[in-house]
């Protein structure tokens, strides 16, 4: 009952939003009339102005001047309503499971466009300038900044082949075949020449990053396929830019010579490499700037955004590939910037990028819907149908053919299932539409636009909606939800070095060799320049470990803070034991002495302050690793308390044979990362050591004594170490637990 009420409330809310959206467009024109009238009223006054002002107008207490704020008001209203739409979808859960968000947004755009049209008004259209300069960059920057580098570089060859060769194939195949189709008398489109067809082919052939992101986001496919399709959609921008400009130039000229074709090839390299170069320059500049921002932390995020945007715009000035420039800038800048900026700035960057890209995406899809309703159409059955069929056909042929060649060079071959997903994931989107919109010729333009919109709709609606059930049906591997594991990181690094070593022994200069050389170059030269202070020497494993510790400490703080206790309990697998331990720990937290705190704070600051959390998943709307927005100092204080706590509860045992060997070495941590060992023979007691390992969620790092009254051995261990010399470590629970525990805490 309540659910139904909520749902019907949701429906009415959504309906209301439609009407308001439509109304806003209408009010856009209305005030023009409004402001006319006051001015006419003004006119009589000057006539009397020369005379002594006999009668004065009463001071206007309340005035209406919409024109003044019109433009920003409308923009804000549009964005606001678009986002409310997005919210609205989640009130209707069943729909959002089946239909991807992009489809719903286009649908909304269609509806609003329809309403506006019914009111005989002119709706705003997806202006190409608006799209390319304001709406597209945030999405690309978000994607580029959080690009999973390892997966990307490992599959770089494959991605490049798909992007370059695949797009070229698509463009020429579709263009050529469409020209053949246009020759059919029945179509009545004989006036379309070869060059125009090729231009059309080049517009429609590019896989669109926005659409791919929007759809693939929700299906959580495995990393390899995601990076293949997504990487292709990013890198094919250079090809699209070159082909588009090439054919546009020549369609005016009418003919193409061999020299022009050659220049086109050269132009491709210039566009792509030039774009990357521009991006790298701005990236290095940004990284260098971030080195000096330690005193003005507040503006750090702005540097990242501005340098990246400048990279995009600078590339666009020279007709280079703006997308590749943006990606290169983000990729180059990120490791150095992250080492330099504060944690808050990092969070800000992450949030802002995701926010902007989310807004952009929403707006793009709504405008796409609007433009569909609005734009002058020239529907030609044969042209449109053939375009659609040929697009699909060329995509499938291209992927299959290229995979056949690529598989000869890949270690991990692409299976038929993979090929199907890659082919099926070749969605077209707003870039194709905007490029079509930029065309000048009006007669062909409308026909092209209609066909482009049809293809976009088909790919986004049909392919977008069916890809999820297909992925389930084909049992394609999903993204593995792996927590950041220190063991995996150790072994990843270990394998890297191992494979480099084996490659060197074989004398084979492969992938690993060059990566190793790049890393070494990076470490010896680049890092010194671009990273401030001592962070420049920190090896990757240590940074990773620090990040993990940070995360654990934060999670502990979260669980320690009373207000959040219930939710965290639900999150971590709550058991009674754990709960009691939490409460017990909370009480312990309060007893730490001040001097010890200061000491610990200093030490931990050195290790923890500038660490970051690395995003493992590049899901765009996923911000699961940042639970807090609290003030840093307060958090730090608690973190350190908890951190110290955690470390003391951490202890391990070393070797094995309890009965056989006389000396059992035991190990224990202190917060300062020092590890003490001792031999059993020296300890007053011998016997069992406890280990209570817990997964890295950090929520339960104390050892597991079922009763809350018997606290961890750790505090006692720490306590006993007080009594012994630092070179010795300690042992296991004795009889007077509580007493020792409080001694421990108060004395330290």
């Amino acid at each position, binding site marked *: 009952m309540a659910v139904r009420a909520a749902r019907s409330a949701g429906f009415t809310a959504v309906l209301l939003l439609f009407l308001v959206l439509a109304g806003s467009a209408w009010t856009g024109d209305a005030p023009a009339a409004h402001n006319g009238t006051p001015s006419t009223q003004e006119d009589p006054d000057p006539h009397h102005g020369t005379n002594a002002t006999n009668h004065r107008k009463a001071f206007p207490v309340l005035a209406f001047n919409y024109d003044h704020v019109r433009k920003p008001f409308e923009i804000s209203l549009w964005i606001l309503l678009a986002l409310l739409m997005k919210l609205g979808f989640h009130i209707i859960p069943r729909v959002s499971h089946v239909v991807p968000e992009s489809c719903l947004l286009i649908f909304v755009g269609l509806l609003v466009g329809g309403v506006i049209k019914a009111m005989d008004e002119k709706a705003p259209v997806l202006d190409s300038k608006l799209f390319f300069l304001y709406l597209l960059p945030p999405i690309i920057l978000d994607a580029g900044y959080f690009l999973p580098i390892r997966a990307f570089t490992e599959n770089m060859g494959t991605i490049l082949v798909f992007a370059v060769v695949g797009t070229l194939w698509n463009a020429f195949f579709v263009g050529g075949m469409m020209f053949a189709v246009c020759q059919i008398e029945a179509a009545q489109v004989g006036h379309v020449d070869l060059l125009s067809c090729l231009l059309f082919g080049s517009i429609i052939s590019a896989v669109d990053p926005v659409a791919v992101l929007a759809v693939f986001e929700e299906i959580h496919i495995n990393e390899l396929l995601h990076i293949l399709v997504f990487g292709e959609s990013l890198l094919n921008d250079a090809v699209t830019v070159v082909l588009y400009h090439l054919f546009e130039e020549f369609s005016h000229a009418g003919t193409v010579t061999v020299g022009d074709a050659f220049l086109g090839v050269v132009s491709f390299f210039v566009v792509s490499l030039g774009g990357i170069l521009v991006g790298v320059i701005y990236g290095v500049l940004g990284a260098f700037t971030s080195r000096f921002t330690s005193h003005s932390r507040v503006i750090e995020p702005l540097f990242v955004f501005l340098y990246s945007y400048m990279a995009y715009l600078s590339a666009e000035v020279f007709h280079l590939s703006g997308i590749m420039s943006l990606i290169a800038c983000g990729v180059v800048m990120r490791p150095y910037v992250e080492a330099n900026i504060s944690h808050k700035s990092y969070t800000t960057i992450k949030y802002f990028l995701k926010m902007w890209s989310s807004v952009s995406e929403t707006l793009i899809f709504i405008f796409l819907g609007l433009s569909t309703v609005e734009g002058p159409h020239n529907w030609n059955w044969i042209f449109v149908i053939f375009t659609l069929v040929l697009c699909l056909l060329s995509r499938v042929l291209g992927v299959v053919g290229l995979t056949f060649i690529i598989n000869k060079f890949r*270690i991990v*071959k692409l299976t038929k299932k993979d090929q199907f997903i890659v082919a099926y994931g070749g969605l077209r989107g707003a870039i194709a539409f905007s490029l079509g919109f930029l065309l000048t010729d009006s007669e062909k333009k409308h026909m092209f636009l209609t066909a482009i919109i049809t293809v976009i709709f088909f790919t986004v609606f049909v392919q977008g909606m069916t890809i999820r059930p297909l992925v389930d049906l084909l049992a394609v591997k999903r993204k593995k939800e792996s927590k950041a594991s*220190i*063991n*995996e990181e*150790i*072994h990843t*690094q*270990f*394998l890297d*070095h*191992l*494979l*480099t*070593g*084996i*490659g*060197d*022994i*074989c*004398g*084979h*200069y*492969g992938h*690993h*060799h060059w990566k190793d050389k790049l890393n*070494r170059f990076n470490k010896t030269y680049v890092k010194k320049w671009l990273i401030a202070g001592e962070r420049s*020497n920190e*090896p990757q*494993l*240590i940074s990773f*470990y620090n990040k*993990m510790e940070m995360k654990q400490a934060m999670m502990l703080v979260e669980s320690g803070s009373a207000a959040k206790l219930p939710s965290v309990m639900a999150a971590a697998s709550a058991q009674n034991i754990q709960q009691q331990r939490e409460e017990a720990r909370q009480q312990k937290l309060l007893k730490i002495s001040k001097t010890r705190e200061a000491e610990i704070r200093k030490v931990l600051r050195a290790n923890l302050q500038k660490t970051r959390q690395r995003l493992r998943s590049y899901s765009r709307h996923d911000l699961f690793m940042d639970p807090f927005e609290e003030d840093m100092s307060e958090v730090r204080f608690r973190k350190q308390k908890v951190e110290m706590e955690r470390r003391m509860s*951490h202890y*391990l*045992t*070393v*070797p*094995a044979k*309890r009965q056989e060997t006389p000396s059992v070495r035991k*190990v224990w*941590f202190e917060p300062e*990362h*020092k*590890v003490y060992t001792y031999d059993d023979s020296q300890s007053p007691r011998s*016997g*069992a*050591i*406890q*280990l*209570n*390992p*817990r*997964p*890295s969620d950090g929520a339960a790092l104390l*050892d*597991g*004594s079922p009763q809350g009254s018997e606290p961890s051995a750790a505090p006692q261990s720490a306590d006993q170490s007080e009594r012994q010399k630092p070179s010795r470590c300690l042992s*296991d*629970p004795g009889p007077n637990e509580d007493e020792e525990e409080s001694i421990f805490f108060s004395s330290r």
Partner: protein
Amino acid sequence: MGTLQSSPAPSEYADLSEKTGFSFEQIGVLHKRFRHLSHNDNVLRKEDFNGIPDLASNPIRTQIVEAFFDQRNFSKDGDGKVDEIGFEEFLVVMSHFRPPSLPMTDEQRDSVRKEKLRFLFNMHDSDNDGMITLEEYRHVVEELLSRSGALGKETAKGIADAAMLEVASISVGHMEPDEFYEGITFDHFLKLLATFEIESKMSVRFLNMDTITLCK
């Protein structure tokens, strides 16, 4: 083992090919490399690996070289270390890095994984007691961080300890107060790296080996 072998003629390649899974051309190329490294001798010694300059800057250099002389990697029941190896042993060690041949059944994949993970395990378990103890694991991490000086040593211990905790928690779960964790057994190791796609990650392209620069 440890028997010296005379350099195999191409007819013996068939045997090696069957044993290790390399193709004839790959074996031929690797043989050329072997002869180059061993200075045209029939056996390879540890000092011969010093002739590879790129290897010198590798942090886990010693462990890699050790792995070649570890009899556990030659056969299932092997034990202990040898001082010199022949071409067959060289090839057997290299075969651990062969890329998986598609398509693989699940059992094949499993056995390939086990084989590769066994190799890694042997590299970590230097005293051959079937377990990676905390000391050994610490050594591994220290080696990895060996380029970062004093800072690395302390943090290495912290990292290794945290890693052991993680292994213990994955393998053993909740432990009673009087139990303790001895070391990582091979089963735990398998479980630990269950999500790690070792069959594809741990492979070197032996395909285009004609591009070797023999002068290095």
